[in-house]
């Protein structure tokens, strides 16, 4: 066997367990679900019918679907700003601090990640209370009349976004810290010896060397946004009021578990999968070409 062929075989061996498990636990269900999307069934009734593209047509015509799409889009933008960029700056800031303080800040900034989303929502429910919650009380001090966060169509999705940002911030923060720590100190020292300013260090060393992590954080935040929005939506608003806070992550649940229309939910899931697949592939290829990896 040639050396190249051996390399191929070795690679496939390393991949085999992961691919096999993924095939069983992720891709087979996806195929099954997509098949199901052409039927009208609730998984339980003895009667079911093939409906062709009916589910997809109904989805396109469903107001909730479009609201969900728009809301997920709003969330994606908010997440990009707040959970992709802000953690980066805070990670840099934390590493500029030395000694005990650094540990304290890191732990505190990471702490929301540690509690379960359900508990976080329970706490935020209290904070969002229009009458006496912390947020509206603080706004009142500044003279602003805070909205009924969860009961008003305009603010409901933002409440969910706020909770999600607060909760998922720590994930990306920790990854940025790890990425920053991996940059060898010698590079900074050498550049400083050459007379580079802090800003130049940041722009020409930190950002490029952090690029692989940044790409990862950006893409995963985008991809996982429906999933991350789900629990807050389920607990705080159930998609309401009047679908105002519905989003792609919750929509599949609503169709499949509130209405028990599993075929219909599968159609939504397939559409969402294809949508994210396309958008992510696009972002990935655009960005990957610009990153200079170590190897």
């Amino acid at each position: 066997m040639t050396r190249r062929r051996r390399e191929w075989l070795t690679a496939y061996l390393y991949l085999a367990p992961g691919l096999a498990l993924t095939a069983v636990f992720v891709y087979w269900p996806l195929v099954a679900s997509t098949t199901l999307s052409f039927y009208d069934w609730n998984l339980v009734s003895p009667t079911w019918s093939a409906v062709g593209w009916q589910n997809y047509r109904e989805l396109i015509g469903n107001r909730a679907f479009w609201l969900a799409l728009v809301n997920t889009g709003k969330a994606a933008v908010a997440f990009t700003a707040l959970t992709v960029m802000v953690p980066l700056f805070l990670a840099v800031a934390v590493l500029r601090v030395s000694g005990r303080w650094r540990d304290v800040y890191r732990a505190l900034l990471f702490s929301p990640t540690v509690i379960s989303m359900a508990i976080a929502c329970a706490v935020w429910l209290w904070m969002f209370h229009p009458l006496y919650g912390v947020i509206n009380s603080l706004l009142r001090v500044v003279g602003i009349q805070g909205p009924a966060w969860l009961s008003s169509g305009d603010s409901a999705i933002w409440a969910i976004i706020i909770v999600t940002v607060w909760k998922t911030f720590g994930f990306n923060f920790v990854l940025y810290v790890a990425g920053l720590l991996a940059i060898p100190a010698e590079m900074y020292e050498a550049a400083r010896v050459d007379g580079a300013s802090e800003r130049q260090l940041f722009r020409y060393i930190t950002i490029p060397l952090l690029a692989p992590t940044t790409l990862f954080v950006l893409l995963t935040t985008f991809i996982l946004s429906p999933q991350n929005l789900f629990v807050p939506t389920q607990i705080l608003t159930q998609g309401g009021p009047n679908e105002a806070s519905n989003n792609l992550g919750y929509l599949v649940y609503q169709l499949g578990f509130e209405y028990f229309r599993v075929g219909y939910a599968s159609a939504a899931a397939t559409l969402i999968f294809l949508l994210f697949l396309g958008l992510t592939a696009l972002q990935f290829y655009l960005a990957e070409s610009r990153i200079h990896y170590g190897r």
Partner: protein
Amino acid sequence: MTIWLVLLALLTAVSVAPPATEAADPVTIEYWHINSPTFGGPAVKELVQVFEAKHPGIKIAEKFQPGVYTGLMQQLQVSLAAKRPPAVAQIGYNLTAYAAGQFPHVLLDKYRQSDPAFFKGIPDNIMALGNLSGGLHGIPFGVSTPVMYYNPDLFQAAGLNPDQPPQTWAELLKMGQTIKDKTGKFAVYLQQPNDEWIDQTLIWGNGGRPLSEDGKRVGWDSPQAIEAMQMWQDMVTKTKIAANLTWEEGLQAFLSGHIAMCLTTIGRQDHMRKNASGFHVRAVPVPRFGSKPLATATGGNVLMIFATDPTQEKAAWEWIKFLLSPEGATIWTRGTGYLPPRAELATDPKYLKPFFDEAPMMRAALQTFPYAKPWVSFPGARGLEITKILIKAREEVLEGKRPAEPILKEASQQANALLPR
């Protein structure tokens, strides 16, 4: 490195230990319920103990399902898909039509012949709650009514008599205005959960029907419904005496003294009593519409049998009979604040009279009981979506950007299209 492998091996060994094998005797059946430790959980355990002592051949594996009735339905659906359903489960009234129509289960009419004595003890209007499209699909078990809890201290602060809360909506509107003017707090909160229980109560109360007799049209666009919902909208947006909050927010606000009156289920009475901050909660029946008689939707659940094995089915039926027996119903009512399906138990000193004496708020429910109407669940495969359409209609009404009439008419049109022809 080796340490990790050893650790992994150990953990894997522990993980793949086979589950305990079941004994051949006795019969074990699964009973799914929504009774959390503070909402009847201990009562369920007690019921199981008493029952198993009487029936040594049957074991009850009681399992709590989170998420109340909706959560239980979701678990049920998945377990039915895997062909491992529980033998007996509590199905919320608003979900009964869907479960009866779409989930395979046991029809219970045959037991009328075999156990006539059991059926004689339950009043007809209660048993009717389990009757759907001509068959007995479940035995009504939990029976709750909405009541109006109120904060006597806020009444006093507004200069009103705390012993005379409003009995009609007209009175409530007037007193509510006084409370708002004098104390600045909201006067009332009508529960806004992910169901339309209170909405149906309003419709029944104003003389309408949530669903027509022939089951072909929802009643949300009837003049009575429109009038009632418009009243609610005005309370929220015009006179601003009612708060527009999610269910949990609204209840919390009541408990912390920010709202004077709260219309919600009697099931919460123990929670209200324990958690009210600095005042003693009282309860009365919900307000009437003028001279029209009191009418409320009945909350709670039916017990449905999903067992496919005949031995399991028999055991399940024995369990159900016990749960509704005077002894079982007593334990149940004490633990939950649900009403007993047999009204006479409430005044029987041997059974529930002491309980009702100790929990004065339960009296409001007792007074409402004779006027209890069904919580209509919508038939057909799209019944659950109909419920959502009507909830969304309510949310839109309370947002107040349009009057109630066009919203309700549109929603009813959409809902009617989903009803079976």
